[in-house]
């Protein structure tokens, strides 16, 4: 009888089959079926019904606002993430650790609390809100407030993706670039960026996914005005509470599709990185 080269724990066929079986079953029940349900529900009135639900004026408005929020949030957080990652991985200075801990705060804070933070500061009772009110600027219960809380909730993603990678790559290549006379911009554009582009891309995709899908924080600062301050997730809630289940899932299916694209993007980025 041939003995296997490595004899490790869990190698026996029975254990193996049992564990894989359980894992697959649980994943299907917990993660896969919900995904299926979204699309089944969304299409339960057929393709025409689905198109009707998506092309509903309010849904289109919600899609539009969501796009605006993402378009404003993502570039802002991308720039910030790149600068922060450059700062903490390329320089040593006192307070570096504190900075990397601070950036995790949005991960730890409940989205509802995040929304409240902004409401307290910029709402009509808040001191920044009162001051802005004198100039007739209202940020809360309108789209700027939604953008602001979304920036808060999604600001760690790009930096979190870049920091470990840039730390691991070290700064020798950049040093070599400086010795050869490259300016700051040339250094970033021609040496750093090509090395981090896949992680940066994934960070941006994650930021986008969260920006598009943020619910708790946004629902605190949005006035929930149809066609005005309704993002797609808020619109999903609204339809669901109106007992328009099919409509809710039709809108949700768009968000689910973005989630799936995010997963695919992650797989591609990991594959690209493992090739380097």
């Amino acid at each position: 009888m041939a003995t296997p080269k490595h004899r490790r724990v869990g190698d026996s066929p029975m254990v193996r089959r049992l564990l894989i079986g359980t894992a697959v079953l649980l994943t299907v029940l917990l993660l896969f079926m919900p995904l299926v349900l979204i699309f089944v529900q969304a299409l339960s009135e057929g393709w025409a019904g689905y198109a009707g639900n998506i092309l509903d004026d309010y849904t289109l408005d919600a899609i539009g606002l969501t796009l605006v929020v993402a378009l404003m949030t993502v570039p802002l957080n991308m720039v910030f993430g790149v600068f922060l990652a450059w700062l903490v991985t390329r320089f040593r200075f006192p307070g570096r650790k504190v900075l990397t801990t601070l950036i995790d705060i949005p991960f730890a804070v409940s989205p509802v609390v995040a929304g409240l933070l902004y409401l307290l500061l910029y709402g009509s009772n808040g001191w920044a809100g009162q001051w802005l009110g004198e100039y007739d600027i209202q940020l809360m219960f309108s789209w700027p407030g939604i953008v602001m809380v979304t920036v808060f909730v999604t600001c760690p993603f790009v930096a979190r993706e870049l920091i470990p990678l840039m730390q691991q790559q070290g700064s020798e290549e950049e040093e070599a670039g400086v010795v050869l006379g490259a300016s700051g911009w040339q250094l970033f554009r021609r040496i750093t960026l090509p090395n981090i582009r896949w992680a940066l891309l994934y960070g941006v995709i994650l930021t986008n996914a969260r920006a598009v899908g943020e619910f708790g924080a946004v629902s605190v600062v949005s006035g929930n005005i149809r066609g005005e301050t309704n993002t797609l997730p808020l619109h999903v809630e609204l339809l669901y509470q109106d007992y328009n289940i099919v409509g809710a899932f039709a809108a949700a299916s768009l968000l689910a599709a973005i989630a799936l694209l995010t997963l695919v993007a992650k797989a591609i980025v990991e594959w690209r990185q493992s090739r380097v």
Partner: protein
Amino acid sequence: MSIEVQGINKFFDTFQALHDIDLTIPDGQLTALLGPSGSGKTTLLRIIAGLENPEQGRVLFNGRDVTQLHVRDRRVGFVFQHYALFRHMTVAQNVAFGLDVLPRKERPSKPEIRKRVADLLEMVQLDHLAGRYPVQLSGGQKQRIALARAMAMRPEILLLDEPFGALDAKVRKDLRRWLRNLHDELHFTSVFVTHDQEEALELSDQVVVMSNGRIEQMDSPLELYARPDSRFVFEFLGQVNVLSGKISEGTIRQGNAWVRLPDSCDNDDAQLYLRPHEVRLTQAPTEEAHLPFQIEAISVIGAEVRIELKPDGWACDELWEVGISHTEFNARRPQRGDRCYAVPEVGHLFCDHQAVPKTLDWSVAR
């Protein structure tokens, strides 16, 4: 271009990496910074390049103070220990980088850059690899590309950090010879860091031995080998046999071992340092020395046979090693466990109350 380093002190937080370093490297010379890891040699090299800033002291190129000059403007060639090739660029793009990033006014035209890259690749004999990426190269090839990249700007100073550290013995030797030739041909001023004494002695015009952030000795390889200033330098330059004892009446003694010194010496505690090839083995003690040993091990190391010796009736921290020729070995056929005696020919005496060691030569007295 000559390099001068004056009064350099460098701290990393509270740790002082360099202590008052003064150093002059004449134009056109190849200088080695030699020392164990943590001796500050790489830090010194990086300070010369401008990759680190000293807390105190000055760096001068041809008499011009460049301490405040940014790395970018120092125009030195630097070869990193792990090459630091740009991994997403081809070999040709790597070599062209320095030229590509020049301001538009100074930048050569595209065809001119291409021509220069081709020349450089030819110089390092790797023109056939122009389109490859760094991951596709061997260590020795990467090393040569890193060198070509550093040379692209025609620097007058070339700095190399452990240039052969990560290569295997054969490639190392080839590259060493090749770098020496290149240096002789192009005549820039080079400084390289190494922890390999053989490499330092073989390759350089001047060796700077460092330990614990200080310069121990600075000399030509021959001088350094012939007259090490300190025990550290002596021990760092290779295998050494030590007899530590007391001098009285011109003889150093310990236990039943003694060596009569050819020159007169004050009474003192002292160590006699002898290199493996500065010692002869005999069957019986001589008038000059009584150093009894038992043979502990015999091994063939290439051209010579190495005999490891255990002291018999006296003590030393490490076993002695003596190299003998195959002819001598075949004539005598010593066996493990045999008793034999060592006779010094040249030696170096370090006395506790004397700063400078004394070189002894028994053959002259004979």
